[in-house]
């Protein structure tokens, strides 16, 4: 079988219809993971992937310039992809009848995996392997994947955060190719955010609700946030979802 150009972490494949892989994931689930290397358990042996984990005691920094911003985006997409992986392995989603809600969440999973892998590839081309953010380790014990409310509320926060993050990062990107890519992704995240909000409160104004939007120049609350990376990282840090420590000490600020 032809080796795919993009190596996707096997933990994602556990979503597939292969029931034995789902059992494998459930065996892994809940284990306290000491290092990101555990995510590679069960992966095909990949000789060309250098160990990207920093040595024990060293904390990865996202880096500077466009690479820093790409790593930042990659971190957020890793987070979203990992979240939706858990959603699709949880009893709320698995218990849904085939239909729009089930499809929406599966689509979000697909899209975030694609985004994540795209950034991983882009980073691999943009910089040396040791400067690419490693696979992060996550802790979603704060989310109840058996609960529709918990899943959708968390999804909403993640998608709204993604929009604000991309909007805030745009001006920090130097290379217009990367700017265009970010532009192509942020509108999809906004479509996601809209759909999730409407699932939670159908037919309401929440798809683009006042509570998540901001005013510009007194013209009205009609704009998505554009939030600086440091503020996004602080907010994401507060969720406790990302176990792997990393720093963002060198990102562009203007």
């Amino acid at each position, binding site marked *: 079988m032809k080796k*795919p*150009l*993009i190596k*996707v972490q096997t933990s994602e*494949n556990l979503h*597939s219809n292969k029931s034995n892989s789902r059992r494998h994931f459930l065996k892994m689930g809940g284990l306290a993971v000491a290092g990101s290397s555990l995510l590679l358990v069960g992966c095909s042996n990949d000789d060309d992937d250098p160990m990207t984990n920093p040595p024990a005691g060293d904390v990865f920094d996202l880096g500077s310039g466009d690479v820093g911003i790409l790593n930042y985006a990659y971190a957020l997409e890793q987070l979203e992809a990992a979240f939706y992986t858990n959603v699709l392995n949880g009893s709320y989603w698995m218990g849904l009848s085939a239909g*729009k809600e089930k*499809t929406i969440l599966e*689509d979000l*999973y*697909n*899209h975030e*995996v*694609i*985004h994540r*892998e*795209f950034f991983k*590839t*882009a980073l691999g*081309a943009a910089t040396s392997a040791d400067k690419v953010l490693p696979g992060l380790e996550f802790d979603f014990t704060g989310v109840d994947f058996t609960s529709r409310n918990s899943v959708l509320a968390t999804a909403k926060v993640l998608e709204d955060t993604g929009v604000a993050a*991309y*909007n*805030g990062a*745009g*001006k920090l990107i*130097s*290379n*217009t190719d990367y*700017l*265009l*890519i970010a*532009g*192509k*992704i*942020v*509108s*999809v*995240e906004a*479509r*996601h955010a*809209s*759909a999730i909000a*409407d699932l939670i409160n159908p*037919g*309401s*104004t929440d*798809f*683009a*609700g006042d509570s998540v939007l*901001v005013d*510009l*120049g*007194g*013209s009205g*609350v*009609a*704009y*998505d*946030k*554009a939030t600086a990376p440091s503020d996004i990282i602080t907010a994401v840090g507060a969720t406790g979802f990302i176990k792997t420590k990393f720093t963002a000490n060198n990102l562009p600020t203007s």
Partner: protein
Amino acid sequence: MNLLKILDNLSNEELLNSKSSRRGSLDQFKNVGKNIALASIPFGLAATSSKAKAATSSMASAAFQASPTDVLNFALTLEYLERNFYRMGLDTTGLIPDADKDVFAQISKHEDAHVAFLVAALGDNAIAEPTFDFTGKGLMLDTFENYQTFLALSQGFEDTGVRAYKGQAGALANDNDLLTYALQIHSIEARHASQVRRMRGEKGWITRNNNTLPDAFSAIYGGEQNTVQGGVELAGLFGDFGGVDAVTEAFDEPLTMETVNAIATNFIVTE
């Protein structure tokens, strides 16, 4: 137009600096604070980074780059179109079902705000409000008699808006503030588009260039079937993750100003 020559010029340091004459025309934005209603638009152009964004080969699509003033007027045309469309729709008794009124009132409110913002930003350089014909002139659409037609046009306008703003990101790249404001509007249009699409029974995201709009509007979705991102062909790589459909859904594509204007012209009455 010799594309290669233009690309060469774009990477010429001198010519990049000469674009600052375009930036000079932005001085008007410093005075936007004098418009009382929107006194706090922070167009801090003096503080804007003078770092010129790197010209790249993909600027081919922006080889003819509009000035920021032109970009804002382009955006204003679309916002006027949407504002008028939604106001007329909401004012048409019996058109929008009660259950859907909150959604369209919210969208309408946003378009009102976007118009106000752009008009204030442009000041004397703002284009006059166009006159619109939402039947599509010769198309004779029953836009305000048939809710399904109204919904279809709404989706078309919102998806067009997303692609229109996206297509101008490069032109605004040298002005951090304008770029950010454009991004903050762009994602709102995407929220609108997602909601209206789903109200029509579509997905909130665009699969390939599939759509159920009248053929006259196929240009709105042209190019959305693209699977090459950042020079990487993504088709075939995500068979377990939704395949080509998902790859096309995961990225929205820009449209050129020319294509968007051609779409909008269907609804603009020229005197």
